[in-house]
């Protein structure tokens, strides 16, 4: 029984090992060259054992075949990262907008709370000095400041709303650009043999999908033609190699609406990402604040006007409206203004006599009594300030928490997919040492060839 059959098998194994080594070298070169490339997923060569060779009674191993290069990625982690990215973008957009809004509710001397306090204080002084023209002038000025504070706060909220609105078409443009690129990469990936992974193309796709998830909430399913990406409510964005552009148009409320590729309005169903955050702050959060502010302006103005009507001004005329309040409550805070220009028109007197201050109590009470909303003006405003502060604080807290979660997930992804330089270095040194030792053995085996000539046989190796 000779082993020549086994030798042929061994030679074949050697040849296959050379091919395998070449493929693996390509993978490692990529890995090290891209150690600092964001989103790069390390590759490893995938081998499969060949069948065994049998020569007579002898069975030898069949060596290995290089199947292809596989990127090491954890799809579940990728999905979690995309979801968290989407959530964080949404929260960050809202946080940024709320911080802008919050500046109008902080105590600055010109804010509503300060103006309300000053207005009440002026009325108290008027009660003590009803005939003082300077005090009357001061009350008028304080009333104008209060109206102005309402106007400024409403304008601040509206400005933040407009900023959010401007982000909608900008974000939609970015989304369309990304979905077109993703569809193109999907097309390229569909040409890659099943045994192989898309390597850098797939890395690029992952990067683009993650960017997309930062712009809007998405759902991803894997199909035979590549990834199918939809919005959270199922509106298709990418199916295989085809992308579906979103559109925008101005709605009846004056704000930009998001339409799917068929023209259906999907604005209210958009969630997550910058787009979801901007739409949420524009259509829900700020309108909520504005509604409360408008109610306060309308009810406070009405209550004060009612108190004015109960008295008489310095000329003995029945009190007229102190504030002009827009008919539409939705415009109350932005449009409220002082109706009188002469301080003598303040209805101080309760009986029309010049020395009466009897109606000042009614005027003051209008600022301290409960409004139809059930709250005093000061409490109603304090409640609004609390809500703005609370929403801002929640958004910041959420952003921090999601950021930490995202960092953990990214670290996990890095542990799975990134190139570990230390590991590469250690193994590189071990390989070098092993090859040196192996080379010495090769030389020793060559010497054995000559040794055989001296074994007392006429033959030689």
């Amino acid at each position, binding site marked *: 029984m000779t082993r020549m059959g086994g030798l042929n098998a061994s030679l074949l194994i050697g040849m296959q090992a050379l091919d395998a080594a070449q493929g693996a070298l390509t993978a490692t070169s990529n890995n090290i060259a891209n150690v600092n490339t964001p989103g790069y997923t390390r590759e490893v060569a995938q081998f499969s054992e060949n069948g065994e060779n049998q020569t007579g009674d002898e069975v030898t191993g069949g060596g290995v075949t290089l199947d292809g290069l596989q990127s090491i990625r954890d799809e579940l982690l990728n999905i979690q990262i995309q979801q968290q990215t989407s959530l964080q973008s949404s929260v960050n957009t809202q946080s940024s907008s709320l911080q802008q809004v919050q500046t109008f509710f902080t105590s600055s001397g010109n804010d509503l709370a300060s103006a309300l306090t000053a207005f009440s204080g002026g009325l108290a002084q008027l009660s003590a000095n009803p005939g003082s023209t300077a005090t009357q002038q001061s009350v008028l000025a304080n009333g104008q400041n209060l109206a102005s504070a309402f106007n400024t706060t409403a304008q601040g909220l509206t400005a933040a709303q407009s900023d959010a609105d401007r982000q909608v078409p900008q974000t939609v443009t970015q989304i369309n650009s990304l979905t077109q690129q993703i569809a193109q990469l999907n097309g390229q990936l569909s040409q890659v043999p099943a045994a192989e992974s898309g390597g850098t193309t797939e890395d690029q796709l992952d990067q683009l999908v993650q960017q997309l998830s930062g712009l809007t909430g998405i759902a991803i399913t894997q199909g035979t033609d590549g990834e199918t990406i939809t919005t959270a409510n199922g509106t298709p964005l990418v199916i295989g190699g085809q992308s579906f552009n979103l559109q925008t148009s101005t709605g009846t409320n004056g704000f930009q609406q998001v339409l799917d590729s068929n023209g259906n309005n999907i604005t209210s169903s958009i969630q997550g990402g910058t787009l979801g955050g901007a739409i949420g702050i524009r259509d829900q959060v700020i309108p909520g604040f504005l509604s409360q502010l408008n109610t306060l302006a309308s009810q406070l103005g009405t209550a004060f006007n009612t108190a004015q009507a109960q008295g008489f001004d310095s000329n003995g005329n029945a009190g007229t409206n102190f504030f002009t309040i827009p008919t539409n409550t939705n415009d109350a805070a932005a449009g409220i203004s002082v109706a009188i220009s002469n301080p003598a028109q303040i209805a101080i007197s309760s009986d029309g006599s010049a020395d009466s201050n009897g109606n000042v109590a009614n005027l003051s009470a209008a600022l301290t009594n409960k409004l139809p909303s059930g709250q005093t003006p000061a409490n109603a405003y304090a409640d609004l300030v609390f809500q703005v502060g609370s929403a801002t604080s929640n958004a910041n807290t959420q952003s921090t928490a999601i950021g930490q979660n995202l960092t953990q997930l990214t*670290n996990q992804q890095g542990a799975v997919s990134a190139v570990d330089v230390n590991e590469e270095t250690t193994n590189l040194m071990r390989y070098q040492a092993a090859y040196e030792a192996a080379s010495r053995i090769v030389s020793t085996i060559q010497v*054995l060839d000559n040794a055989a000539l001296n074994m007392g046989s006429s033959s030689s190796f």
Partner: protein
Amino acid sequence: MTTVVAQDRDRIAAEYLQLLEALRGELDKAMRAIANNALAQFEESIASQQILSARLVVLAEKLSPSLKAESATPPIPVNDDLMHRILIAGDSLQKLNRTYAALLHHSSRSTAAMVSLFASIRGQFQEASGPRLKYQTWSCQM
């Protein structure tokens, strides 16, 4: 006495043959380990090769009278059949050894290329912070 010596040489020759075949098996195993990127198995095989080859050198010296200068008697030939098998096994081992040498040469050059590549970008690495699980990332199956 001559018979005893002849039997002794045959026993050594038989062991020599056995070791040749074992070494051939180890070269097989080493090449497969290289192809599979099984560094630990590769190192294990090299350790076995070192033991086998060292023993083969010792036995080859015993079986080669010409190496002993003081010996004046002609060498006692090894059993013909055994010698024939040794020659075939040796021939097989030498051929495999040449393939193994080529693979090692290629792999060593690959390693050198990797060292060069590694050195060229050394200092540019920005290791990610945070916990990093230890994975076998060395995919250079040279």
